[in-house]
């Protein structure tokens, strides 16, 4: 088995996350799809680090995890405040700026 398989798996997971962001209506599920995309990129970073025999890719993946944690905190609190204001978590209902 070639290590390229990891990259292929990562690409497919990233595409799945993209489709999820496009298709799903629930803001929390959309957010989870973004997390899946971040994880797919992390997998490719780790694989590249291994192919190159250096650890820089792993450090990058580590920083991606840290940033993702901060992003989740802020994003979920935004979703919660929207939910408290409008009693909905659907991305279609947050349309105050539309008209």
């Amino acid at each position, binding site marked *: *088995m*070639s*290590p*390229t*398989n*990891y*990259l*292929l*798996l990562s690409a*497919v*997971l990233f*595409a*799945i996350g*993209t*489709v*999820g962001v*496009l*298709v*799903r*209506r*629930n803001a*929390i*599920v959309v*957010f*989870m*799809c973004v997390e*899946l995309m971040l*994880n797919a990129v*992390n*997998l490719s970073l*780790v*694989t590249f*680090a*291994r*192919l*190159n*025999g*250096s*650890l820089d890719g*792993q*450090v990058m*993946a*580590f*920083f991606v*995890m*840290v940033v*993702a*944690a*901060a992003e989740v*905190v*802020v994003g*979920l*609190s935004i*979703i*919660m*405040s929207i939910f*408290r204001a409008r009693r*909905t*978590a659907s991305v*279609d209902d947050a349309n105050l700026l539309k008209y």
Partner: protein
Amino acid sequence: MTTSTGEAVAFWILGPVALAGGLGMVFSRNAVHSALWLVLTMLSLGGLYMVQSAPFLGFTQIIVYTGAIMMLFIFVLMMVGRDASDSVVEVLRGQRVSAAILGIGFAALLLGAVANSVVVPLAVGPAPGSNVGNLGLLIYQRYLLAFELTSALIITGALGAMVYTFAGRAKAKVITQRERVTARLLGPPEKYGSRSGPGVFATGDSVATPALLPDGSVAPESLSSIIEATARERLGHATELAHAGDAHDQHARDHEPHHEAGHEAGHEARHEQSEIQGSQA
């Protein structure tokens, strides 16, 4: 460079599981089911990290992602409500079909690019030394500035979450101690001190108010040794009774039935009696 058989086995088990988790997350109607599918994906990704000689990232993935972040997601899902599933109505017509076509095209593009362009180099083993130690050296030496910046980022994130939590909540007026004292002194006089206990019919419970005996004289036990008591003459109606009581005790004893009758005798009498009994208490 080919991988060992054990790694191939791990990949062919964990990879399909990760794929199934991703697909299940996108296609399950219930948001909680989506979260659980994503947990499955993240767990198997952690396993894949460990297989690729990145044990630190693998455990971090499991602890931080599946342990903390997905728990946060499920927490918020429970607060929003489990029933908050997707609406079936398509706002944009044909969005799902076009999204599926775009996704498949995107995946094909990525796969083709990766498969055709990545040249696997000669076999390079993992760096000597432990993975965690080498990562620590890198993070705290070459990437120290970035690492410090992430701490600022996390603090900002926590502050932002608190701002969003308290946003829109009307700020309650804070009453200062001075305002409280002023309001109490301007209010009705019963609020000066603490209230009398139950069963006590009193209008004044200050230490400076001496207790009056049934004959109207001041009870000496009720006088404080450090606080000057209110002069008996300033105790209002009780003063007249006190003078009468001083005259002779028999008269004070005669007063008792008068006070009993005072209940029907109108407001003035009731007031008088209440003051006396309060002083006795």
